[in-house]
């Protein structure tokens, strides 16, 4: 009797069974398609290969990995059903603050009288100091975001918008708008050569594994999937959100230091609009703004799509204005696609 019922339930399922077509696969097909498209255009209009050019690929990847580091954090925030608009400003604030602790005491044999903390009898600090300070600044910004969202129930959009303005203010206030330059060699090394790529790969791999194999990952998806269910299952939703936003802030801080080290200088305006690019990378890679769905793998593919498009435009000598406009259109298209997917799912569900 019991056998019979189970079988009929099982049998009734087969017509409902749908293809499993992960969003990451769509993104991957998109990546390959766009790359091949630019490749063909290249042969027609430029007379050379787009992809078979190591120098170009190297520049391309270096252009996107900094925002990619941010996207790893933002992806987790979006999976919980939230959003983080403060990433770009946190990059600016961290770049300024960390750099001021990383300034060389001597330049060309002369004392660096323009260092921010010159009056304190400045000498080179070990690189761990600016690193810790930078990560600390990012972590603090993320913690405040998370605490506001989790405990005051301010919508993530508003809370992180506040942090976006505040952190930018901090970046400007830190040196009254002056750029900060002359990092120690050790600090500069963070941004040189392919180190930013290595940092991205390490961060992406770490959080890929964490999301897949730890309790943290399950709870992140559960909260984005059904916050009430997560709460009723005994997950401390508030504490978890604080953790997720803190990690996003930490990664923005890391990205800020990489940008500063790479450019050998920090400016208060650094990282403007990075938050949108990071969100776009995630969404293009199949991370759903509705929460509960998406992966670091997808965001990484989204990042590569971004890189291919930007570097493809330069390769095809497309005007920079068009680049901006098309980038904007792609972001909107990705969100429209996500909304459309949600609707279709709701109808099927």
């Amino acid at each position, binding site marked *: *009797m*019991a056998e019979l*019922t*189970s*079988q*009929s*339930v*099982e049998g*009734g*399922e087969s017509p*409902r*069974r*749908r293809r*499993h077509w992960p969003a990451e696969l769509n993104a991957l097909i998109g990546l390959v398609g766009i790359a091949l498209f630019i490749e063909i255009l290249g042969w027609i209009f430029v007379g050379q290969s787009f992809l078979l050019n190591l120098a170009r690929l190297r520049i391309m990847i270096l252009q996107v990995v900094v925002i990619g580091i941010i996207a790893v954090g933002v992806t987790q925030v979006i999976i919980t059903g939230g959003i983080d608009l403060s990433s770009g400003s946190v990059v600016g604030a961290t770049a300024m603050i960390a750099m001021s602790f990383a300034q060389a005491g001597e330049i060309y044999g002369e004392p660096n009288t323009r260092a921010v903390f010159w009056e304190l009898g400045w000498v080179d600090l070990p690189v761990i100091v600016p690193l810790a300070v930078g990560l600390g600044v990012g972590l603090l910004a993320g913690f405040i975001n998370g605490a506001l969202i989790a405990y005051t129930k301010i919508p993530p959009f508003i809370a992180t918008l506040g942090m976006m303005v505040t952190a930018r203010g901090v970046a400007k206030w830190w040196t009254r708008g002056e750029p900060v330059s002359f990092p120690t060699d050790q600090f500069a090394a963070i941004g040189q050569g392919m180190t930013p790529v290595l940092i991205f790969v390490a961060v992406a791999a770490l959080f890929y594994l*964490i999301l897949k*194999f*730890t*309790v*943290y*990952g*399950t*709870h992140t*998806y*559960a909260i*984005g*999937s*059904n916050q*009430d*269910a*997560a*709460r*009723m*299952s*005994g*997950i401390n939703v508030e504490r*978890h959100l604080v*953790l997720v936003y803190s990690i996003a802030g930490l990664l923005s801080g890391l990205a800020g230091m990489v940008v500063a080290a790479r450019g050998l200088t920090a400016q208060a305006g650094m990282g403007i609009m990075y938050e949108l690019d990071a969100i776009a990378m995630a969404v293009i890679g199949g991370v759903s703004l509705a929460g*509960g*769905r998406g992966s670091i793998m997808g965001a990484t593919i989204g990042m590569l799509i971004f890189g291919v498009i930007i570097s493809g435009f330069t390769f095809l000598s497309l005007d920079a204005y068009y680049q901006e406009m098309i980038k904007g259109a792609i972001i909107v298209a990705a969100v429209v696609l996500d909304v459309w997917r949600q609707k279709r*799912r709701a109808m099927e*569900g």
Partner: protein
Amino acid sequence: MSDVILKTEDLTKHYGGVQALEGADFELRDGEHVAIVGDNGAGKSTFVRQITGVEQRTRGRIWFDGEQVEFDGPLDAREAGIETVFQNLALADELDVPSNLFLGREKVKFRLGPFSILDRRAMRQDTEEGLRRTGVKIPKLDNAIRHMSGGQRQCVAIARSASFASRLIIMDEPTAALGVQETAQVEGIIRNLKERRVPLILVSHNLRQVFDLVDRIIVFRRGLLVADLNAAEVDGNEVVKHITGVANQDATATFA
């Protein structure tokens, strides 16, 4: 006294001006299956939410397992051994079956705070074992719940409660959205619980089901617990009278 597993006294819940539940005195003995029936808005779900700590009651006292209890949240109730299948399913659609079964109490290979490493194999094995024991058959455990039919999802929710419940299971309209066969499967699970002598509170609108499954029927009307009936001694018409209020006068007489 000794075998009373759950007892409420003067249990009351007001939502602003709405008296959703008023002075409910209730007792459940070990191994007993009790149904709660009543019209829409009678206060059945409200009663369940006060017992399970989902909401904080306005007034009244609750004893569980011989001790007076204060559940600050559903987790407290769960830790005490009460598992609940809520009217709106408490499942995470994007997670697979084992993750849902173990949500909030994951098995881990080694502890690292929130970053503890999941023991997916153990959870999968226990899921298979739990589903087998409760008689639930689900074809693909690794699929996200989203890909499943309403009946299968309901079975997952019930299997989750049935596998973990040590002292008491509460189900709020578990078959309301199910087809005939799926309903039969859920009823199978409930019979299975009866054999295992796990006490049950079943909220249901389906009188046929109630008479088939339970020992005792409690009727709520407009926030009041109006009748406590022995399922073997009454018929459907009498229960309906209590639900609609036609039997208002003799309802008090049937109090046990």
